[in-house]
């Protein structure tokens, strides 16, 4: 088990290195730089060129990459042009927000999807199943950014049940219960908007897996032992059917990151997704590369997590 996890973690290292090269090169390939838009146009262009040379803009990419990655491994992502402060500091504020938003979204997704998937699979081809499937196809077909706007308009503006932007009510003392509740209140609507339509793959996977598993021979064995239907579902079918959900967990995290970029912008939620989009438009390279790298690392980590979860649930893939 530990050996398996360790080996799996070792595989991550080359993945992350390749990822970092891609991110760096792609970021460099974006047209323009921070100096082209941000700086006072009255300054002599020759002076700007001078600064560019000074900052290493014309150095070969691998040298630039080397100096960047050297900083990254020591936790230094450089400074932001825009905020005039270390990237690490900016990100550390945002990453907590994004982490909670993603966690709540993930929990809500599974809270909605797993019971629906189980019902749908257990009572397949009944009206209940068709309604649930209808809902999941609807979720599949709805674009997140439209749905999020509708949610914001209805529950944020029309009904006024939820705050429409920000991650916390200003003026609250961090660490207090009110502060915590306010944070939760602010992320509930974005999380719910994302969860409601991100459930489709979990529901459909679970449903099909249950329909499949309940025809397996070991279910008959359990029945022949005298196990009741509820016991058969809980003890035998469910665990076998959750395997692909566990395998899908890593991908789910990737989807979540993709989704959070839309969601955070629509709901004005100060997280990593919003930071990324703003930084891309302002060519704030050090922030762009740092956030993208962190997103990438999160996906890789998600895949690792699903492999480890899978190896706990399924004895067949434990490598000795």
């Amino acid at each position, binding site marked *: 088990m530990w050996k398996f996890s360790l080996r799996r973690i070792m595989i991550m290292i080359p993945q992350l290195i390749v990822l970092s090269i891609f991110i760096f090169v792609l970021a460099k390939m974006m047209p323009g730089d921070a100096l082209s838009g941000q700086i006072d146009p009255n300054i002599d262009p020759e002076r700007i060129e001078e600064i560019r040379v000074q900052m290493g803009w014309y150095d070969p990419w691998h040298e630039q990459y080397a100096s960047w990655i050297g900083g990254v491994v020591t936790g230094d992502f450089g400074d932001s042009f825009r905020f005039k402060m270390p990237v690490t500091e900016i990100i550390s504020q945002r990453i907590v927000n994004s982490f909670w938003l993603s966690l709540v979204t993930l929990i809500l997704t599974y809270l909605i999807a797993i019971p629906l998937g189980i019902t749908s699979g257990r009572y397949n081809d009944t009206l209940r199943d068709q309604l649930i499937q209808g809902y999941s196809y609807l979720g599949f077909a709805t674009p997140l950014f439209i749905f999020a706007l509708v949610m914001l308009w209805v529950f944020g503006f029309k009904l006024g049940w939820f705050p429409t932007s920000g991650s916390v009510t200003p003026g609250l003392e961090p660490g207090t219960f009110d502060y915590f509740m306010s944070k939760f209140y602010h992320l509930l609507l974005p999380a719910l908007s994302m969860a409601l339509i991100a459930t489709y793959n979990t529901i459909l996977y679970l449903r099909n897996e249950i329909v499949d598993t309940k025809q397996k021979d070991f279910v*008959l064995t*359990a029945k022949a032992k005298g196990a009741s*239907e509820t016991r058969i579902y809980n003890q035998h079918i469910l665990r076998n059917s959750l395997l692909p959900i566990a395998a899908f967990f890593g991908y789910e995290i990737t989807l979540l990151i993709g989704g959070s970029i839309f969601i955070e912008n629509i709901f004005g939620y100060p997280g990593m997704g919003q930071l990324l989009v703003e930084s891309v438009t302002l060519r704030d390279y050090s922030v762009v590369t740092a956030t993208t790298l962190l997103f990438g690392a999160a996906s890789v980590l998600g895949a690792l997590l699903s492999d480890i979860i899978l190896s706990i649930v399924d004895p067949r893939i434990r490598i000795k």
Partner: protein
Amino acid sequence: MAEKLLEIKNLKTSFRIRDEYHAAVDDVTLTVNKNEVLAIVGESGCGKSALAFSIMGLHTRAKIEGNILFKGEDIANVAPSKLNKLRGKNMGMIFQDPLTALNPLMKIGDQIGEAILLHNNTLSKSQRREKVVNLLQKVGIPRPEHVFEQYPHELSGGMRQRVVIATAIANEPELLIADEPTTALDVTIQSQILDLIKDLKDDMDSGIVLITHDLGVVAEMADRVAVMYAGQIVEVGDVLTLFEEPLHPYTRSLFNSIPNAHGTQDKLHVIQGIVPALQNLPRSGCRFAPRIPWIDEAAHEEQPILHEVKPGHFVRCTCYKHFKFPEETKEEQHHGVS
């Protein structure tokens, strides 16, 4: 007179295919006595397994008519909760394919233990463990303590079948249904498993329904034999009678298609055609008639019934009186000329 354990009366199990019910098991009447092995023989698709599943109540969407009396109590169409008290305790089932019959995510010990737990929850965990280890030992699994902690994928097919058997006999059932228990295993393992089932039978004094298409297995194991064709019993008798003087054309064709040890035949008999699919079963007349087309139609009964030719020996339809293999007919003609 032997004690009757299971009495099946006019059992009809039908499945719905495109809004119509078709009987996979049709008008089957059988008895199984205590400490007796009843073999059910037939080609694939004859309804053998459908019959076994009907007895255990394992069909989910089937219409079951007739009676299945287990120790005098009708268990056809009873509520699952009632059946669950019998299944696994009074009747056990050994499945065909040991590779799929075990839950891949559960330890061997827990899977067998579940059968005990479901019918006796007074035992402590360690008592149950001890019982499971004993069972593993009983079915001939080496290092039972170790296997207890293993998962199905770590065992070979033969070992897994032993686990399936251990599960079936966990509560010493009075009736054991073995649905082709050796089909998925290779020959050397087959005989070990059969010996095991035989020993267990003598041990527990239970009745066994052995479903197979292997006549060698029948000869070795059975006390009585029921031959099934297209959902019906076509011949029943004790094993000696049936092997010495099989009467029904189907039984005779089956015997005729096994190679004999003397090698006197140069070509094996092949039964023409295949078992008809459920939807295409003939509604009336002898169901085997289409596969012996050289027999005059008048030889068959219109609504074939089981005839008792000797005490305990039943044959369906009258065609058996007129049945001859094509080779035999030729030979007779040949003799006639000379």
